[in-house]
């Protein structure tokens, strides 16, 4: 009987290489199960077999995202697997991110089912739960014994292409996908039952949890401004004269990134606005009125701030869709994160 070939992904710690000091270890593979894999083997259905384990250091993975993903995928593909299990990562943030990234990439490229396990608050859970099945686990490795059977059961279902039940039935993190089901009772009877529970103060399950109003937790303040690298971003459409990227005056479909090296002041010969929503005369006369490069350079020279980041980003806010604005902010954000800026001033008109 042909068995289902499973590959297991682990970090350096669960891969029994070592702790934080080994976190930069490059991906490699071993035949058969390692560490928690041996427990998994016992929990998996008889026709499933862990043919290999791929191990990668968490630091290495997160700092070399693309290269690490490529290597890990190549190693996994080498085992000709039918299914990938990653983790569980519990509440380990970098491990969770790695499990999520590996699973998502394998699902996309190798077209095989994938499953991982994490604690709900693991940042990797939030990042990847919409794309892959993540079994809900406790927050530490002490919960391993509980996590393994759940992971194995879901893996079996996925490998056989069985219909997946609800998150509550199957123990995975809800992916935010609304799917139609047929209940036992009609809607009105469910409403009456829910009303009676709510009236009696008993717990009840709403069928549609209202999305919480989207807010971001304020990030902690900059401790020492005089060492901080500050970046400028504007939705006021300040662009080098001639608008080299052709940013539209409204409903912008792109954003621009421009170099400020050696520029201490914006003037009408070098910068202008692409914004179409207001009278552009004042910004064209002196673009510092929208993007305060002159003042930032002063403050840099005086040592009030460590330094001004040498790239600034510009979009046009006017009529730009909410979705597009989010998309640009993500792209800009990724770059600024790489550049390790300490704070951002966003100016809008």
């Amino acid at each position, binding site marked *: 009987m042909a068995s289902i070939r499973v590959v297991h992904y682990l970090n350096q710690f669960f891969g029994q290489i070592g702790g934080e000091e080994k976190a930069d270890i490059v991906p490699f593979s071993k035949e058969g199960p390692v560490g928690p894999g041996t427990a998994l083997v016992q929990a998996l259905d008889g026709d499933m077999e862990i043919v290999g384990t791929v191990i990668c250091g968490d630091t290495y993975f997160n700092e070399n995202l693309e290269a690490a993903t490529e290597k890990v995928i190549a190693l996994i593909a080498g085992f000709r697997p039918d299914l990938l299990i990653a983790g569980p990562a519990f509440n380990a943030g970098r491990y969770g991110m790695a499990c999520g990234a590996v699973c998502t990439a394998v699902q996309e490229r190798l077209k095989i089912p994938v499953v991982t396990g994490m604690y709900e608050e693991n940042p990797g859970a939030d990042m990847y739960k919409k794309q892959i099945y993540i079994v809900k686990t406790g927050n530490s490795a002490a919960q391993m014994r509980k996590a393994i059977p759940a992971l194995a059961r879901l893996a079996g279902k996925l490998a056989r292409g069985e219909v997946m039940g609800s998150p509550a039935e199957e123990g995975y993190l809800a992916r935010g996908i609304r799917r139609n089901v047929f209940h036992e009772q009609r809607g009105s009877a469910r409403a009456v039952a829910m009303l009676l529970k709510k009236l009696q103060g008993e717990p009840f399950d709403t069928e549609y949890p209202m999305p919480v*109003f989207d807010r971001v937790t304020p990030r902690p303040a900059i401790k020492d401004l005089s060492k901080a690298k500050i970046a400028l971003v504007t939705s006021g459409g300040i662009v080098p004269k001639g608008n080299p990227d052709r940013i539209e005056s409204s*409903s912008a479909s792109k954003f621009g990134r421009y170099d400020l090296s050696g520029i201490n002041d914006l003037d009408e010969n070098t910068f202008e606005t692409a914004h179409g*929503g207001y009278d552009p005369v004042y910004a064209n006369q002196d673009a510092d009125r929208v993007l305060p490069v002159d003042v930032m350079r002063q403050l840099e020279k005086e040592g009030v701030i460590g330094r001004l980041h040498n790239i600034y980003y510009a979009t046009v806010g*006017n*009529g730009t*869709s*909410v*979705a597009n604005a989010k998309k640009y902010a993500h792209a800009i954000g990724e770059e600024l994160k790489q550049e390790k800026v300490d704070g951002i001033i966003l100016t809008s008109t």
Partner: protein
Amino acid sequence: MDSRQVLIITNNPMVKNTNNAEICFVIGDCGQVLYQVFNQVAMGRRLLSHPLAGSIKFEDNPYRSVVLSKPETDVDLSTLAMLEKCLEKVEAGVRERTAAKGGLAFARDFQMIDKELLDEAMQALGERQV
């Protein structure tokens, strides 16, 4: 309320030449209409009719007319929050637009329904004393 005291933002050609009200005619889809509405509300106008039609899908419906008040001094925050939600729905709808070609053949019917809903709103507003 005097109809001359309102601004109608619309992309519906059937509404374009309505007399007695200030018309802002938008060339574009419903999303573009809502962006204009958002800008106007941010500048202090009050929303008088709801930005979404009832029971016609955003992605199918090519036409929308929205009624706003004259500018006031302050900005109505809760309306901006509501508009953001509506825009999210409309933008999600655009992603999987459906009626497209077929819808255009029925453009007049869509225009007519939008105008009917606008007329209902204008009539309700007309009965109001300010």
